[in-house]
């Protein structure tokens, strides 16, 4: 029923740091999350992309040193595809993801507080419907707890290098988009003032 007190405290401390970072990253805000999906504000992609590349380097180094083990979720295609679709739609309408809903509550946002209640209701429904959902979750096969290096029989470092490279290109592209965006805004203002 309960983890050890040390582990509970460790979870609390890790969570406080996580929540602090999410709030400072401005992702506990409706406008930033929905702005990402309207392809206007790239904060979410910048944070997640950087976290994934930096995280991967450390985790695979820890695994290589025997200091950590991977915890990969199984590729149950039915569950992942349907779940991903419902999740994406729900997240856009709510305007927060699960972690940032909780962080947005910390920031004082009322809609997020009601969103948390809805999340609890959704979890109640999921557990109650669990037996009936199994055919859906497993309907398109179970590929097991596989990683991309497993599937392609390649080194994880190749993938990490690829992600880091894609990240650097992404940063440069986003800079370009930002500059272009600013220019077009300035152009509009000029057009507006001359009219």
């Amino acid at each position, binding site marked *: *029923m309960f*983890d050890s007190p040390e582990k509970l405290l*460790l*979870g*609390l401390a*890790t969570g*406080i740091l*996580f929540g*602090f970072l*999410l*709030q400072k*990253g401005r992702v*506990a805000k*409706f*406008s930033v999350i*929905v*702005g990402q*999906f*309207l392809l206007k504000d790239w*904060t979410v992609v910048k*944070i*997640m992309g950087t*976290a994934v*590349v930096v*995280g*991967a380097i*450390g985790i695979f180094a*820890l695994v290589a040193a025997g200091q*950590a083990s991977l*915890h*990969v*979720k199984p590729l*149950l295609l039915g569950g*992942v*595809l*349907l*779940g991903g679709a*419902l999740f*994406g*739609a729900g997240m856009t*309408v709510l305007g927060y993801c699960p*972690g940032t809903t*909780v962080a*947005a509550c*910390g*920031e*004082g946002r*009322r*809609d997020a507080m009601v969103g948390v*209640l*809805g*999340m609890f*209701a*959704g979890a109640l*429904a*999921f*557990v*109650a419907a*669990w037996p009936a959902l199994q055919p859906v*979750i497993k309907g398109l096969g179970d590929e097991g707890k596989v990683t991309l290096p497993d599937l392609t029989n390649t080194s994880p470092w190749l993938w990490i290098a690829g992600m880091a490279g894609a990240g650097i290109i992404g940063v440069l592209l986003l800079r370009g988009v930002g500059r272009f965006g600013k220019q077009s805004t300035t152009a509009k203002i000029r057009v507006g003032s001359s009219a």
Partner: protein
Amino acid sequence: MTNPLTLKSWPPYAVGVGIGVLSWFAFATADHPLGISTAFENTAALTEKAIVPEVEQSNGYFAAKAAEGKPPKIGWEWMLVVGVFLGAFLSSRLSGDRSPETVPALWRWRFGGSPAKRLAVAFLAGAVMIFGARLAQGCTSGHGISGSLQLAASSWVFSAVFFAVATTTAFALYGKEGAEHV
């Protein structure tokens, strides 16, 4: 020099590095990836068991999770969620970036200022979001960040699907014009 803790925001890349390093810490100290939505499932399962004890026999969920060695509990991940609330509270208090907001501006522009409408939809959307997360066994944290950084195939599929559907939904709801109101 300004105290960084009192700033309203940090650069996104710095926050990303912070979360990446925090996930090393979580793996190394607790043997656990950062994830949020499992705690909601655990709380729901414990609640149902407390209200209707027979459910432990009648719903195969409980036997299956026990067999996996992951029975519902108040554990590390549960405290992580409590911590996220406290950390965000602390950060917003230190910087004064508090938003006791019910109806966000973009929502108001598109759907009007009714708090009841916004809250009813937020409740339903929260339910759909977590239902989807549990079908897929992860959310933006568990799949999007922790799973992707482990190069998990399931997490890359999840991330691609959720981003595509979220983007489609955003344009369906707010249109191109919506971007002017963010």
